[in-house]
């Protein structure tokens, strides 16, 4: 055992060796590597050094030096001018979710950065790697209630993975390197850099900085071989194993390892909303979606399986319902990169810390080949029931007004089930994730944890920049669309090819649904008087079409997909549509309302 005095030595060294602070200076050190430049320019250089090619932002007083520096980098850095800073953060999220890269937002101080709060909180809940760069008043004015000053660090600390105030120009390359390292490693999340004006205009000798460790930060905990062996043993012995797939699989690039795992042991798997598209929709082992509006079979079987294998999920209450009756019969194995998720909501028998890509591969190596034919067959009956009672009615209503589900289904079909699905929040979201289908990973962009209305339109813009070769379909509602509708201006100015499908029922549909089911049909403030959305789109030079007849739907979808550039398809859907099945909030996952 080491004694305290020895540690002193280590500390003394740390003082002199900046690498102990996670600060590794790269570059050759030759004079030609040094460039005298303003802090603002060093920020742009540092962003380029991180591989950034797209920024979503909005200028303002305390960010002018950065925007001025940006002016000389137009050929290297594509800045997308949004219409509201919230939109910039959601766009960065959409970009990050489909591309796997860090999304970047650039805004000014005070109201500018205050407007990013919703996006930062959203990215924190959904583990989305974004870096929000905000201008700040000069250091000498900090704390004086200066014009457009807000305590950014104080406000964003609880909702970000890391928040740091830069007060000196020399700190910028280091802070940027650290921000990207933190945002993108381990369990990803939002990072906020608050850059004082004086740091932006101060002169630095720029040298690129790269960071590959921070001493106080363990992004991926070490894998524990004993646990891996225990898990393999338990899975081998399982008669009725069920795997739950979360976004951790996608964030860890573990899609292939997941399939290997499921196939080798013949385990049926269900996804959380954010885990969707990790498995292709037509994968035979894919038994659907979990949670409040998930599929009947996996929800029921959660409480019948003997071993529950949760991979990169955080047991959100919308997935588990009542915890006291959740999977009590099962042994639970939990794969996660974040130790704080272990036992947070559900007590687990075997925690497997680490990156799913590595931990799954390690378990697969030890697993026996297995067959669970009888168990897998048990999923068929509840599936049949759901198809009969819920899905057929929603997708093939025959007569009456358009349903939300049929619109989603037809768009998914028309895109060959290979488009990126972006949703807003509410009924449009649940219908979107229920009925859109996926062929490849990273195909779902939705606000899962925070449930942010207004997320959809800007997130779709970001998604298009993140995956320019893919078709991006946004499903939104009349409520959510109007929360960030100004981003139609961004779509116009940057000619963003986003297919917007507005499921318009003139209601805040999900709240209305709850009012109908649980609040005695007292529709308090959920009815909306809406504008002519097609005219609004037209004002932004975005073509569109209003569809209310079933016969027109296919043709309208074709027109939308054949149109180059953005398009608004407004579907007048059934006014009091319901999303079923539904597990009421706080009740057991087996307590399912089918309609």
């Amino acid at each position, binding site marked *: *055992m*080491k*004694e*305290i005095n*020895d*540690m*002193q030595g*280590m*500390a*003394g060294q*740390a*003082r002199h060796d900046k690498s*102990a*602070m996670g600060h*590794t200076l*790269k570059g050759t050190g030759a004079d030609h590597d040094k460039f005298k430049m303003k802090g603002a320019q060093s920020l742009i250089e540092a962003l380029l*050094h*991180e*591989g950034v090619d797209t920024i979503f932002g909005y200028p303002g007083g305390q960010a002018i030096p950065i925007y001025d520096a940006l002016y000389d980098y137009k050929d290297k850095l594509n800045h997308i001018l949004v219409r509201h800073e919230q939109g910039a953060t959601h766009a960065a999220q959409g970009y990050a979710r489909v591309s796997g890269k860090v999304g970047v937002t650039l805004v000014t101080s005070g109201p500018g950065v205050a407007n990013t709060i919703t996006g930062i909180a959203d990215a924190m809940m959904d583990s989305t790697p974004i870096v929000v760069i905000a201008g700040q008043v000069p250091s000498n004015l900090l704390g004086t209630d200066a014009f457009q000053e807000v305590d950014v*660090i*104080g406000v964003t*600390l*609880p909702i970000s*993975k*890391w*928040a740091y*105030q830069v007060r000196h120009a020399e700190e910028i390359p280091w802070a940027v*390197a650290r921000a*990207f*390292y*933190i945002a*993108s490693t381990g369990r990803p999340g939002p990072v906020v850099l608050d850059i004082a004006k004086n740091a932006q205009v101060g002169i630095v000798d720029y040298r690129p900085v*790269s*960071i*590959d*460790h*921070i*001493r*106080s*930060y*363990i992004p991926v905990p070490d894998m524990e071989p004993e646990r891996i062996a225990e898990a393999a043993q338990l899975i081998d012995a399982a008669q009725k194993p069920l795997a739950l797939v979360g976004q951790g699989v996608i964030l860890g690039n573990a899609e292939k390892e997941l399939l290997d795992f499921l196939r080798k042991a013949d385990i049926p798997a269900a996804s959380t909303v954010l885990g969707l598209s990790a498995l292709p929709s037509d994968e035979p082992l894919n038994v659907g979606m979990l949670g409040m509006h998930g599929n009947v079979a996996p929800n029921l079987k959660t409480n019948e399986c003997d071993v529950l294998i949760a991979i990169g999920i955080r047991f959100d209450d919308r997935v588990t319902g009542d915890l006291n009756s959740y999977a009590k019969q099962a042994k639970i194995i939990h794969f996660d990169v*974040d*130790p*704080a998720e*272990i*036992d*947070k909501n559900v007590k687990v028998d075997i925690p497997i810390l680490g990156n799913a890509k590595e931990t799954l591969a390690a378990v697969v190596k030890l697993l026996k080949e297995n067959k669970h034919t009888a168990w897998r067959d048990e999923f068929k009956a509840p599936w049949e029931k759901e198809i009969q009672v819920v899905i057929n009615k929603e997708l093939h209503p025959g007569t009456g007004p358009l349903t939300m589900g049929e619109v989603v289904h037809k768009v998914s079909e028309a895109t060959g089930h290979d488009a990126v699905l972006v949703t807003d929040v509410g009924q449009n979201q649940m219908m979107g994730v229920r009925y859109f289908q996926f062929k490849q990973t990273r195909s779902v962009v939705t606000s899962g944890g925070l449930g942010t209305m207004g997320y959809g339109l800007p997130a779709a813009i970001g998604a298009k920049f993140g995956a320019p070769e893919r078709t991006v379909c946004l499903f939104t509602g009349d409520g959510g669309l109007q929360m960030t509708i100004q981003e139609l201006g961004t779509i116009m100015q940057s000619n963003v090819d986003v297919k917007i499908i507005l499921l318009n029922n003139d209601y805040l549909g999900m709240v209305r649904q709850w009012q109908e089911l649980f609040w005695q049909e007292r529709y308090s403030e959920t009815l909306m008087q809406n504008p002519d959305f097609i005219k609004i789109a037209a004002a932004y030079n975005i073509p569109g079409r209003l569809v209310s007849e079933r016969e027109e739907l296919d043709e309208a979808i074709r027109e939308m997909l054949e149109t180059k550039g953005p398009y608004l398809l407004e579907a007048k859907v059934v006014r009091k549509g319901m999303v079923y099945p539904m597990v009421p909030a706080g009740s057991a996952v087996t307590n399912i309302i089918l309609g």
Partner: protein
Amino acid sequence: MEEINDNQGIAGQARNDDNEKTLYTITIFSENMVGLLNQVTIIFTRRGLNIETLSVSPSAIEGIHKFTITAFSERDDIEKIVKQIDKRVDIVKAYYNTDEDLVFQEIALYKVSTQKLLSLDSIEGIVRRYNARILDMTEVWVILEKTGHYDETQALFKELSEKIGVLQFIRSGRVAITKSKVERLSDMLAAMEEKLNRKPTIHNY
């Protein structure tokens, strides 16, 4: 100067409410960065947990600060809180202990009237019984110091305030040392150093 009569105080009240809960001592090692305390306290705020005592100072390891926080809680909650603190990027290590694992002290200062103190039968008796000491005195006041556990510093407060009144009173947060031989942080830092040295190349981002 007014005397402090209500020797229970708000803290005493809170203690009574938390009777069924255990007092946990949370030890946190962190980088010395602006806003670190805030990063720690917001995690208590979110879960609605009161901090009973708090003490922060540079640790034995240069550049690293040590927090000692006590709070009444249930084990399940304290475990989650500690994990969430540990998860913060600038926190090097966080863990929790119960009193049995620790040697701990608080320090208390008492200002009393010199005249009233002299009126006691035996100043020596009090000082000796409580193992207190006199730090400073004037014609008007005397400052006593006592280190010990909460109950011990509280007992002296109670006796003084009942007998002669206390003009001013302050008690520090707890400082604690684990009964194990080494700070756990040293193992962790050593392991990290080793891990870094094992790395073949540093890759660029």
